[in-house]
């Protein structure tokens, strides 16, 4: 088993991270369009998307079957399948892989739920170290406003209701997201995350991302034939 930071693949892996409502998915979608238009072979991999694990997760969330430990392990299972299926093969083939959420999401959420910080890092030690990891940092109140106003109800686990901090979903959500943000901030230096100020305009954030990614693309083969 090759550990985090030890893999040598010709492909490039870019990931976006951040609290819910930070706008990271929008940014990744724009990046995807740009890379495609430029002719790069590019693949997209989303959090919680393993075909083997999806049904279990869906059922577990609906029926509130998860504890902090099993929440962590089930998401690690999902992530392992994505790594083995969607991430490693294209990277070996020299493609660009874009991941919406990565191991740092697990570190932030699981630790916020009370899982041991070192244990969860060890669990994910098989993960490929990204070429760049962008952390979309939005002030807590902005992120919370975006989510709360965009949805009729907050989901049980999303709001951290399982931890039992508060019976009020909105209050629980605010506390949970605050703790998650703390964990993200701690990881900036630990993992060398690239912080993007998510309170600025979409266009400006996208320009910044493209500028930062550009130097890593020089050696990437373009799929377009001319």
């Amino acid at each position, binding site marked *: *088993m090759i*550990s985090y930071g030890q893999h040598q693949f010709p492909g490039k892996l870019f990931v976006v991270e951040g609290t819910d409502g930070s706008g990271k998915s929008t940014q990744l979608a724009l990046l995807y369009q740009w890379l495609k238009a430029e002719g790069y072979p590019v693949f997209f991999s989303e959090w919680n998307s*393993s075909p*083997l*694990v999806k*049904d*279990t997760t869906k059922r*577990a969330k609906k029926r509130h*079957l*998860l*504890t*902090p*430990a*099993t929440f962590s*392990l*089930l998401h*690690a*299972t999902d992530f*392992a*399948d994505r*790594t*083995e*299926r969607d991430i490693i093969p294209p990277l070996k083939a020299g493609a660009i892989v874009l991941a919406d959420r990565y191991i740092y999401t697990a570190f932030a959420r699981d630790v916020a*739920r*009370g*899982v*041991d910080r*070192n*244990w969860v890092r*060890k*669990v994910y*030690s*098989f993960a490929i170290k990204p070429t760049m990891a962008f952390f979309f940092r939005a002030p807590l109140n902005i992120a919370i406003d975006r989510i709360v106003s965009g949805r009729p109800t907050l989901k049980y686990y999303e709001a951290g209701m399982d931890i039992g901090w508060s019976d009020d979903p909105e209050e629980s959500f605010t506390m949970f997201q605050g703790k998650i943000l703390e964990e993200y901030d701690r990881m900036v230096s630990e993992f060398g995350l690239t912080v993007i100020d998510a309170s600025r305009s979409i266009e400006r954030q996208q320009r910044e991302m493209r500028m930062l990614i550009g130097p890593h693309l020089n050696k990437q083969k373009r799929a377009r034939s001319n």
Partner: protein
Amino acid sequence: MQFYGTPLPGVENEDYPGKLIVVEGTDGVGRSTHIALLRTWLESRGHAVLDTGMTRSVLAGRGIKDAKTGTTLGRLTMQLFYATDFVDRLENEMLPALRAGFVVLTDRYIYSAIARAEVRGIDPAWIRSIYGMALVPDAVFYLRINTAQQLVQRLLTSGRGFDYWESGMDLSLGEDLYDSFIEYQTRMLKVFDRLTGEYGFQVLNASRSVRSVANDLKRAVMKVLDEPVPAEDNVSLMPPPRDKAPTKPATNLLDLNKKALP
């Protein structure tokens, strides 16, 4: 309450009145038969028993079974899916039962999972750190068989035949299920022998009759439960005490004959 490594999150470190008893062994050594026998016997003696085993969790049991019907289950994914199943049962079945004073009998524990991972070339330290959340059991009984060929004999007599995963077909070890089964189970036996020392298994020779293995298990379980083996069980469990040995009358007869000879 003692964990192998990083404890389960949110669990108070308190003692529990129950006992955690593990029955381990490779595929087809008769673990489920012995657990069923132990369970009936313990219940007849007034113990509340919970039995559990791999892939039986409410959370992940079905998902693992579904994943195993295909061949796209990767090595790491498999380990983590099993770990999810294990921790769900630990938190929702085993721990509550132990707190309530049950005897928990588990058909396999973390050792099978560790052995399967090691045979698949997974980092031994990694898999152990994941299962650090496991409770150290009160006893681990390893039903040991010498060779994979003996397991094959058992498979044939049970009529079960060869299973894709029990044959380690995902490892491409042989041309067909038989070759692969022999190679895979041989490797598993080797890893189990190594784990025996590491985790202090109590080894039982499983190539004997069900009855004699069951008797040994009962005696060993009584010890774990701090109960003296009662007299009525002595008759079937142990060789008769010397002074009441059935050979004694025979000796007497011989003496009588000797006396009668001259």
